[in-house]
């Protein structure tokens, strides 16, 4: 079943994520994808995440289609202007890529080429509008395409925005993304379920499927690092303590993730599991969560 069909079927969705690395070595990523392929509806491929120069999202998404996996091609506005973005989308379509996740992208200063020129010709909202335009058979300038794609566009939202203004703005922007054509949302990692539930209550009227983000906690240190450095991610102290106290970090990590997945099952339409190299743990997480 394609991701679009899964989405339209109304079933509880499971997506995962792989991040191509720096260089041409893709073996371990293909292996990771192979381990989880029968347990997920789609796999996201990140676009130079954290603004670090890496192998591209389009090429690796294409490799996933060769394996019979439906990729979600992540595309940011950071590195390409509207010419390149549109062209890459057409290229992605002919390479068998059907789903696009439109993101603004981190600023280049966050990554390993901090003096690169930031592009941001389009942002997540205008990127979605442009995808809609391509789908309708026209480019952004209104020229007719000879052969049009039929992408399923998605977007992200950060439910853990850390103050009222930031959260109101996230929700306003979410509405704009929906108007611009977003058919599903994937969220930043959720640890504080009560906070996430409040967010869900505010946006459930939008009637667009929300796939809650789950990042496998690998250690207490990682949790503290995210609390300090990743916007919108907050790992509650008791969870950090669980990681500190455990003798078996992998087991505990899986247990925590499964607990979160179980609760998200009642709140939103799917889970997006970001395993950050621990992809082989994803089946155990899903088993424990009863999915």
């Amino acid at each position, binding site marked *: 079943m394609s991701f679009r069909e899964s989405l339209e079927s109304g079933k509880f969705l499971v997506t995962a994520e792989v991040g191509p690395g720096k260089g041409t070595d893709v073996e371990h990523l293909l292996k990771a994808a192979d381990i989880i392929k029968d347990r997920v509806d789609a796999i996201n491929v990140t676009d130079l995440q954290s603004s670090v120069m890496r192998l591209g999202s389009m090429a690796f998404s294409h490799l996933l289609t060769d394996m019979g996996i439906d990729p979600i091609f992540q595309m940011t506005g*950071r590195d390409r202007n*509207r010419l390149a973005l549109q062209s890459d989308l057409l290229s992605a379509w002919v390479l068998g890529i059907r789903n696009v996740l439109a993101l*603004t*992208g*981190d*600023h280049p*200063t*966050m990554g390993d080429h901090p003096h690169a020129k*930031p592009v*941001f*010709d*389009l*942002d*997540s*909202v*205008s990127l979605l*509008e442009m995808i809609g335009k391509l789908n309708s058979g026209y480019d*952004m300038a209104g020229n007719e395409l000879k052969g049009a794609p039929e992408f399923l566009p998605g977007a*992200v*939202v*950060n439910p853990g*925005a*850390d*103050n009222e*203004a*930031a959260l*109101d*703005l*996230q929700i*306003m*922007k979410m*509405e*704009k993304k929906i*108007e*611009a054509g977003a058919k599903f949302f994937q969220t*930043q990692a959720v640890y504080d379920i009560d906070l996430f539930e409040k967010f869900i209550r505010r946006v459930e009227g939008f009637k667009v499927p929300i796939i809650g983000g789950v990042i496998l906690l690998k250690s207490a240190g990682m949790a503290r690092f995210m609390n300090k450095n990743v*916007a*919108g991610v907050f790992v509650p102290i008791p969870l950090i303590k669980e990681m500190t106290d455990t003798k078996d970090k992998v087991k505990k990590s899986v247990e925590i993730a499964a607990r979160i997945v179980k609760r998200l099952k009642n709140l939103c339409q799917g889970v997006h599991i970001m395993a950050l190299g621990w992809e082989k743990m994803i089946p155990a997480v899903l088993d424990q969560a009863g999915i």
Partner: protein
Amino acid sequence: MIVGERKPMEELLGMIEDFERILVLGCKGCVTVCCAGGPKEVKTLSTLIRMDRKQKGRKVITIEASTELQCEPESIRPILEKMANQYDVVLSMACGAGVQTVAKLFPDKLVLPALNTNFTGIAEEHGVWTEACLACGDCVLGRTAGICPVTLCAKGLLNGPCGGASEGKCEVSKDQPCAWQEIYHALKRLNRLHYLKQKPQVKNWPVHPGRVVREDLREVETT
């Protein structure tokens, strides 16, 4: 105002190495206000140049002058024409526009920039200036409570913030507030939060170099 900073002394001294008669030309406009290239700074720089040459045992003549606005031909012409035989090089303490105006008007004289031009900005406090306007040619300030997202959002986003802000600060710098959160607070204060719900904007970037032609003014000039 246009905000600039004087180049490092070493770089300046290197630029003028070949010359003995130097016109140090300040500007009484923006760079005076931001204490980078006004009459006071002309005096200081000239003194530093003479001290350096004295130390090296080399001759130098510095002429100190300042134009009203160095980006205005009428402001420069009388000063530079009057002294045309007295200097070999112009060390301009104006912004890049001033330097280029001198170069255009006096193509036979070499002009060197004494400043690095940083941005169009405002004084935040004594000794602190911040960028305010990218001169993008399509002002959106009316919709954003007078806070420019094109300039103050590190990504220049037009349709609301990215998800990168933390505790109200931009992901690029903890010293920089998230422009969109500032816009939100300002619009809320003005009871205009609905401005945020406008339809998505795409910026049509201007082609550089920019050019403004006002036919009404041109006609007056020629008749």
